[in-house]
């Protein structure tokens, strides 16, 4: 592998990792703060992709679609929490697993009824359509770089939200200790609703952003879900920073696994997880394995 190729591969790893982070961040947020195991997160990602498809078809512009999608998803996430999850917190994980598993089936079928089972492409807005040449062998699509940039921006925004704002303070309080948060006069119900719709929004956003490169197809959520689980497991529950590190790590392992060890490319990232479990059961930056 020449140096140029190596660098391009690193770039590939980065942008795959960044995407993973964006999807997984919503998951880890909901995990860490609400202690809900959400199997339907992958389906949310799929909803995003299909939203991108139908809204761009509707409005003709991806960015209008994105804006619309963001608003829709926040509202929808809010309602979703209220209808399906608000009474689950006192139940044990089994019930949550069951509920979200049911949601997966419903969402998949609704998708098939409303939009159908065909594979769709989503057009990249003209001014991002081009490619720039990297090395002398290969062009790199501008849109992919744009997505990566967007991921970074969103990541920073998230960091700022959690670390620097009042809402973030409340969220962290809620995460560390429900009772304490309540005693601080935080409406935990409302807080959870906000956090959930935030997580939902992140999943949908990443789905929409990545739709033009990933294409839109049935069952696209399932794969994404499992990789997200890996991100959360490796990063450590509820740790956004951990998720970030883990996502990039997986990006690299996956990309270079495909290149250097084709026979085992499928299991490379799982082996990574096994090793992490061996040395750090709580994940890279997770303090509380016991929940």
């Amino acid at each position, binding site marked *: 592998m020449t140096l140029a190729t190596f660098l391009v591969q690193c770039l590939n790893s980065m942008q795959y990792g960044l995407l993973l982070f964006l999807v997984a961040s919503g998951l880890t947020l909901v995990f860490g703060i609400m202690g809900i195991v959400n199997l339907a997160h992958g389906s949310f990602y799929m909803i995003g992709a299909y939203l991108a498809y139908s809204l761009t078809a509707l409005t003709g512009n991806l960015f209008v679609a994105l804006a619309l999608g963001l608003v829709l998803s926040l509202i929808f996430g809010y309602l979703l929490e209220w209808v399906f999850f608000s009474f689950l917190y006192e139940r044990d994980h089994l019930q949550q697993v069951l509920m979200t598993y049911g949601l997966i089936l419903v969402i998949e079928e609704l998708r098939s009824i409303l939009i159908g089972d065909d594979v769709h492409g989503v057009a990249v807005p003209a001014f991002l359509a081009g490619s720039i040449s990297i090395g002398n062998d290969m062009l790199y699509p501008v849109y992919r770089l744009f997505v990566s940039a967007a991921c970074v921006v969103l990541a920073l925004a998230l960091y700022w939200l959690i670390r620097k704002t009042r809402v973030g303070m409340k969220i962290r309080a809620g995460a560390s200790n429900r009772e304490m948060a309540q005693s601080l006069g935080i409406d935990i119900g409302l807080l959870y609703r906000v956090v959930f719709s935030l997580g939902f929004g992140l999943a949908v956003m990443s789905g929409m952003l990545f739709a033009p490169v990933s294409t839109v197809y049935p069952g696209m959520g399932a794969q994404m879900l499992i990789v997200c689980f890996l991100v959360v497991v490796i990063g450590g529950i509820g740790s956004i920073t951990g998720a970030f590190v883990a996502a990039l790590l997986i990006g690299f392992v996956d990309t270079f696994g495909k290149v250097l060890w084709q026979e085992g*490319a499928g299991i490379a990232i799982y082996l990574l997880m*096994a090793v992490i479990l061996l040395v750090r059961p709580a994940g890279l930056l997770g303090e509380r394995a016991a929940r």
Partner: protein
Amino acid sequence: MTFFTRRRAWSASNWTLFLLALAAAPAILDGGFELELLSKVMIMSIFAASLQLLVGCTGLVSLGHAAFFGVGAYATALVVPQAGAANLVATLAFAGGIAMLFAVVIGLLVLRTRGIYFIMVTLAFAQMLYYVVHDGKGFGGSDGTYLYFKPVVGMFGKTWVDLTDGRAFYWSVLAVLVFTLGVLWVVMRSRFGHALAGIRHNEQRMTASGYPVFLYKLASFAIGGALAGIAGSLYAFQYGFVNPELFSWHQSGNVLLMVILGGPGFGGAIAGALVFVLLSDWLSELTKHWQLIFGLLIIVSVAALPLGLTGGVAACHAAIERLCARRRGAPVKAAPKEERAL
């Protein structure tokens, strides 16, 4: 799962009744599809019961149990002779053993985690095995492989029963089901079983009392894995075809579904398996969007039946009241533990 399965969902008489009904089934049905369906129900019952040992008895919510089912099935497919029938008992023992081996190794890793974390890690390991058989050499690849002959029951080269006959196979599956239930019953009434129940309910206290909790969990995980492997082996024999999809997380999800919907105890697991198989069978012919109905059923049942099918009307009422209570914005009382944990 009630403590020590004391307040058992099924009384002994119910059990005998149920098993006798199963034993008599071939008399009513010809050896065709219906019988196959029933033996599938029984195989799934074994599978679900093995998971119940983890979920209900030990409090280990595993979303990767299909891994051991698949390992059992593949172990069988790979070990049976290409020409000629295999010995059922020997093969089952082998498949169970291999599955247990996997369970121990995987358990050593996943049992280092808890709760949500455990759910995800088990899922991930099942997926890992999926890729091993899917991409690995000598597993038959993505299309799967065949078993060409039904097994025989016998010893020292003598054949006692040939299971090519549908009924014979059905009855041997029933026998294995009985065996499984026997094992689980013995385990749960032993000190070991009581300790598992204790761990499920209050791990901290058990450690403080001096129990090697990790070992107990591992043992439970291994037994559950072995039984799942046996179920997988039977599945492979019944259909003569194994495929990587046996490892897919949908399988894990479905069996967990059976256990949770079924409710407390091994009776619950079997009820879950029975209803799940027959229901999905029935719905799938009703409409092509049966999974929508199925999903809605699940969601409703979670909302209404925190105790699963066997939970009964009382629990149903309680759950609804709780719902109404929180709708009115009154503070929600957490359901008492023994009601909440299966």
